[in-house]
């Protein structure tokens, strides 16, 4: 037997490589050529991992320690078999009485009594009381065969569950007979073509205490309920599946009011499509800071900030904006109740309750310590699948505690889960201390490189008051403002205030106001000075103009005088000439 070492399964080292492995194994799985006929379990994730379910017409072994959910798994197989796939079943219980069984699974919404009444399921409780049985000579377990055969015939069963057949080992002394009879039983089940689940209690260093895996070699599924740092996580692993490809990792699974769900956690394949549609954040100032007027749909946005910077208010505003566009939103809150979020959002003028009532908004509030990390991921996976939101808020990611590598791995897959579906994700993260503007390395949990956008909210302390500022550290694929902007939260919502950047840096709050006043006064003074200068110039220009006029007038007067003199001169010349002619004439006459 390939020794399964219970120690190696857990641990951080295993978490990371698992992501890589998964993509390989699952890509192999769906390409199922005409292989083994399968009996679907109706447990969605499980059928994905196994490429269709358990082997049809053969026994499969489900093993696990006490409380790992073997019986529930088996019951789900039967109930789904008869309700979804029209394959009636027989439940042969060696531990619980049929009424206990019905009561136990009633919490999952299975009405066993009704199914029994309708002849869809037969339950046979096999009770073997060691104290009133004495063995005397040769015997076989033909009675068990007959009972099973009778039950199978009575409902026309195609599926059988034997839960937990191992108890027989404590009921009979003659183990040799028992073992040979069990072998015969499994052979009989195969001959009858029954899809069968045999449950087995987990043994030390082996799958089952009684080595049932020796008899059931077609398919072995291991259920595990591990406690790590006081938090339990249910995990499932297909150890072996003869004749079929299957996912080989440990997959977290959930048991709750909606039954069992196994989560084939998606891998790190970066093959998801992208959207260039821009969606508004619902905060006009923030939209304006982003070149395109919002974030791309499907963006993973990291909102980091110290306590009280309004991370949840920002997320609520974005949720509100999305809901008003008619989109579905989900908020996973880990530190507040849904009612609290709704009430707090009201203080910034948002009515989230209205969206919740309209079925557009769903809250999932849970304490981080309620489940293990994997379980949270699994739960989110299921809820996201079921609700189909366009925007998901996880508030805050810092609520998850655990070994860093593990937290990071889970968050990575969470981001991937959303990205693969084109869902916009808002992850808030609490930073500690520091009012400085330096980027806090540990607040992003190593997430920053995964994130498409990162908005950082901070407190700026100055002049005895604290003001809130934000800046966009990054926004992939779009230009964005490099400014630190002050914002205020009021009943009108979140409002960004025009940036004020003076010689001493960005000013906020009352410092900004007083600086504005100072600058306004200075501006007024400057304005007045300019006016004065302008008037002076005008005056001087007028004076110069006047002088020019005078000079020109004088020049003109001189010109006129010159012209006059010239005329007089010419007149005198002509007068002289006339006189000479007259003299000449006079002289001639006289001669």
């Amino acid at each position: 037997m390939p020794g399964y070492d219970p120690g190696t399964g857990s641990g951080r080292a295993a978490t990371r490589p698992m992501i890589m492995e998964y993509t390989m194994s699952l890509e192999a799985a769906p390409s199922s050529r005409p292989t083994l006929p399968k009996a679907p379990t109706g447990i969605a994730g499980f059928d994905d991992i196994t490429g269709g379910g358990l082997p049809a017409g053969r026994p499969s072994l489900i093993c696990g320690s006490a409380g790992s959910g073997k019986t529930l798994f088996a019951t789900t197989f039967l109930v789904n078999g008869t309700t979804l796939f029209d394959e009636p079943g027989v439940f042969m219980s060696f531990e619980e009485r049929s009424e206990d069984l019905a009561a136990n699974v009633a919490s999952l919404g299975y009405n066993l009594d009704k199914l029994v009444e309708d002849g869809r399921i037969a339950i046979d409780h096999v009770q073997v009381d060691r104290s009133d049985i004495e063995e005397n000579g040769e015997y076989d377990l033909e009675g068990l065969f007959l009972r099973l055969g009778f039950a199978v015939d009575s409902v026309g069963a195609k599926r059988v569950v034997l839960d937990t057949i191992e108890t027989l080992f404590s009921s009979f002394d003659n183990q040799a007979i028992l073992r040979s009879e069990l072998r015969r039983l499994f052979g009989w089940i195969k001959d009858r073509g029954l899809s069968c689940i045999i449950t087995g209690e987990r043994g030390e260093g082996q799958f089952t205490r009684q080595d049932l895996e020796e008899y059931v070699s077609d398919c072995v599924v291991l259920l595990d309920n591990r406690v790590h740092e006081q938090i339990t996580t249910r995990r499932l692993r297909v150890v072996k599946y003869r004749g079929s490809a299957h996912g080989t990792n440990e997959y977290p699974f959930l048991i709750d009011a909606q039954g069992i769900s196994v989560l084939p956690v998606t891998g790190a394949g970066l093959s998801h499509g992208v959207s260039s549609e821009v969606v508004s954040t619902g905060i006009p100032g923030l939209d304006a800071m982003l070149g395109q007027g919002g974030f791309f749909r499907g963006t993973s946005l990291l909102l980091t900030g110290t306590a009280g910077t309004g991370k949840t208010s920002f997320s609520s505003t974005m949720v509100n904006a999305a809901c008003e566009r008619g989109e579905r939103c989900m908020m996973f809150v880990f530190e507040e109740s849904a009612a609290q979020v709704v009430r707090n959002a009201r203080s910034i003028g948002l009515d989230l309750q209205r969206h919740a009532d309209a079925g557009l908004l769903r809250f999932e509030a849970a304490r981080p310590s309620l489940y293990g990390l994997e379980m949270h991921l699994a739960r989110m996976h299921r809820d996201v699948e079921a609700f189909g939101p366009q925007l998901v808020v996880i508030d805050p990611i810092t609520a998850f505690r655990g070994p860093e590598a593990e937290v990071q791995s889970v968050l990575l897959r969470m981001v991937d889960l959303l990205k693969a579906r084109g869902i916009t994700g808002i992850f808030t993260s609490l930073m500690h201390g520091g009012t400085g503007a330096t980027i806090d390395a540990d607040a992003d949990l190593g997430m920053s490189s995964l994130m498409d956008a990162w908005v950082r909210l901070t407190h700026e302390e100055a002049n005895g008051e604290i003001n809130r500022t934000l800046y966009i550290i990054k926004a992939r694929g779009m230009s964005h403002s490099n400014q630190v902007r002050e914002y205020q939260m009021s009943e009108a919502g979140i409002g960004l205030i025009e940036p004020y950047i003076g010689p001493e840096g960005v000013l906020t709050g009352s410092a900004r106001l007083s600086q504005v006043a100072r600058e306004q006064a200075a501006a007024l003074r400057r304005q007045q000075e300019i006016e004065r200068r302008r008037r002076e110039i005008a005056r001087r220009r007028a004076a110069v103009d006047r002088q020019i006029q005078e000079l020109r007038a004088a020049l003109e007067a001189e010109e006129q005088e010159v012209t006059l003199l010239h005329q007089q001169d010419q007149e005198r010349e002509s007068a002289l000439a006339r006189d000479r002619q007259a003299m000449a004439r006079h002289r001639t006459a006289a001669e």
Partner: protein
Amino acid sequence: MTAHNIDPTASGEDDGVYRLRLYVAGQTPKSLTAMANLKRVCEQHLAGRYEIEVIDLMQNPRLAAGDQILAIPTLVRRLPAPLKRIIGDLSNTEKVLVGLDIRSQTAQP
């Protein structure tokens, strides 16, 4: 001591008749052996004070669940109370006597 305290109630309704039921599945060698062994023991130790009902589960599989039968053959002592089961072909007579709690008539005054 305690065994004696319980016994009177058992023997109170006890008319001394042993009502036995033998579950078999068809005429297998084991079943036949068991039947023969049972008859012999009863004849020897309970002559006239016993009733044997043989149930063939091959014909009546529905009856198997009632008495919680798994092993074949199974002998069930229905009376006197308490209910007792012996599985096997009853080849060990001593164990049958002890198992059925049969006190030989002569030894019991």
